[in-house]
């Protein structure tokens, strides 16, 4: 398995603020990877660095094996990007928007793109400014997919969409992945979407990578240990304890790399993805695993 995006000690600074600090991560080929984290954590910055809109302040990023700064053309040819704003020219018609895609990209599948929009009932002669939010999202996605990319980057693709439009967009996405095998990276706040659509996860918090890996494997490595109330200070000192909640007579610890059987008097329960993500986000000191290798990413 190869890496769609590989970052090594990647850092990006805007004036005084570090948006990303010493990030090392691997986005594997052939998977749908979620970028999760609070606002300002650096998700958009990371995507912009991957597509070459920004240059790193320090460190290295490679997209499909190329440095996006030194080789913008092969990267742009093979990577589709839908930024958060879902940019489109408002007074263009949908048809003119497609034509622009055809004009600017060396590889373009007009027939498939039209079929895609037809499936969603989006007329080609309507001006973009008269489309609904969900339709604009579909057009933006179609525009990015029209060049038949190897990698697709989506910045909060389902944000501000009503439930029907959101489901429509995600369905379109997974159907395309099933049919064409595109590698996808999407940033999202909706853990339920992530759970449904993604099989790989990167948690970005405060400009750093807290956790990264296959979702099922990560969930397997973590457990919620429930047992008798323990001293909070003891819990705080243990690095394998990601979060500790004490209530009444019980303490619940979210731990990583637990022993096969829990200690006496404790029971181990599996965690939901949301519990896992929240525990890491609430504990900025947790995480920062050693830089992943391809072998780890493949497991």
């Amino acid at each position, binding site marked *: 398995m190869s890496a769609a995006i590989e970052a090594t000690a990647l850092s990006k600074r805007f004036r005084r603020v570090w948006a990303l600090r010493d990030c090392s991560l691997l986005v594997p080929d052939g998977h749908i990877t979620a970028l999760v984290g609070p606002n300002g954590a650096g998700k958009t910055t990371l995507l912009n660095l991957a*597509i070459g*809109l920004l240059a790193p302040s320090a460190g290295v990023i490679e997209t499909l094996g190329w440095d996006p700064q030194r080789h913008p*053309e092969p990267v742009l*040819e093979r990577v589709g990007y839908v930024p958060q704003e879902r940019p489109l*020219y*408002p007074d263009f018609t949908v048809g003119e928007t497609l034509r622009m*895609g055809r*004009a*600017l990209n060396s590889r373009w599948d007009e027939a498939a793109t039209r079929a895609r929009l037809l499936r969603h009932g989006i007329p080609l002669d309507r001006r973009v400014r008269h489309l609904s939010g969900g339709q604009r999202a579909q057009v933006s996605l179609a*525009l990015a997919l029209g060049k038949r990319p190897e990698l697709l980057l989506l910045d909060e693709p389902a944000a501000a969409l009503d439930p029907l439009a959101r489901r429509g967009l995600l369905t379109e996405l997974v159907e395309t992945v099933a049919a064409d095998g595109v590698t996808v990276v999407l940033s999202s706040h909706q853990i339920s979407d992530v759970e449904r659509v993604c099989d790989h996860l990167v948690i970005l918090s405060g400009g750093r990578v807290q956790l990264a890996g296959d979702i099922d494997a990560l969930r397997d490595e973590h457990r919620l240990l429930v047992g008798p109330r323990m001293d909070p200070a003891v819990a705080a000192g243990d690095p394998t304890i990601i979060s500790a909640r004490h209530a009444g007579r019980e303490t619940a610890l979210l731990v990583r790399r637990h022993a096969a059987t829990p200690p006496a008097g404790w029971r181990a329960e599996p965690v939901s993805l949301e519990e896992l993500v929240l525990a890491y986000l609430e504990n900025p000191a947790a995480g920062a695993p050693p830089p992943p290798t391809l072998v780890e990413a493949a497991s």
Partner: protein
Amino acid sequence: MVWLTWRQHRGHAMTAGALLTALAIGVILCLVLLPHLYPDGAQRCTTSGTDQSCVALLPQLGSSAWTWIVLGGLLFPTLLGTVGATTISREFEGNGHLLAWIQGVPRRRWFLRRALFLSCGALAGAAVLAAVMQGWFAAQRGAGDAIWGGFDIGPIVLFGYTLFALALGTAAGALFERTSPAVALTLVSYIAIRVTIAVGLRTRYLAPLQASTVMGTDPAGMTGSQLPIIPAGGWTTGLPVDVDAAGHTITAAVWCASSPPVTPGCYPAPITLLQPYQPASRFWLFQGIEAAIFVILALALFALAYRLVMRAR
């Protein structure tokens, strides 16, 4: 990218085309109407004096048409400046955010091609405008029409102004990344720089010639007919200056009326009055110099815009 550039600037092109067409139609109408109204020709009208309405109307028609034409000539480059500003600021702002730059065309190619297409369009428009202006001039030029009066809408400088305005707008758009401040800066700087060069620099492109009158009488008693005479079509570029016999400038020409001199600080004859001017023959050279200045500025501004756009943020 040709189609995309056209489609994005379709509105601008239509507006410019409409303006130029209106201007051209106006000029053609004037040129066609005037011979009909005054078959004996404009010369006849101004010199004959018999037809009072003709005498009154013609200059009026001429001057109001003149105003509109000058306005058109001044407006055209500023429109180009706006085009330049919005082209880039749109890519950064709101919905067009970097759209072209995340499709298959890298920024460098996008910028160079866009600048090239817009420049060609701008120069083509300037050519039409210049042709219209020259048509008007050729029909209207009569004795005493100062060629220098039409310097700002002369056929050569128009190309320079147009390219300059476009480049200025492009640089402003790249600097601010937002349309409103970019357009505002473009208009303000365009006016400021044009005025500065026109007022401050234009007179100095070449050392002016001097027309002179030697004064044998008290300069205080001098009448207008004794002022130096500028050849026809010349452009006075400054105030007249008094110089003494050795050529030094005198600030207050007090002529020593009697000998020995009675008034202290007076100057003996001869005192010469010098009037600097630029002759009509230099008009085209000056057009070329000013156009070259603005083209160089334009290239520098395009280079600045390129660097701003390529600088990875």
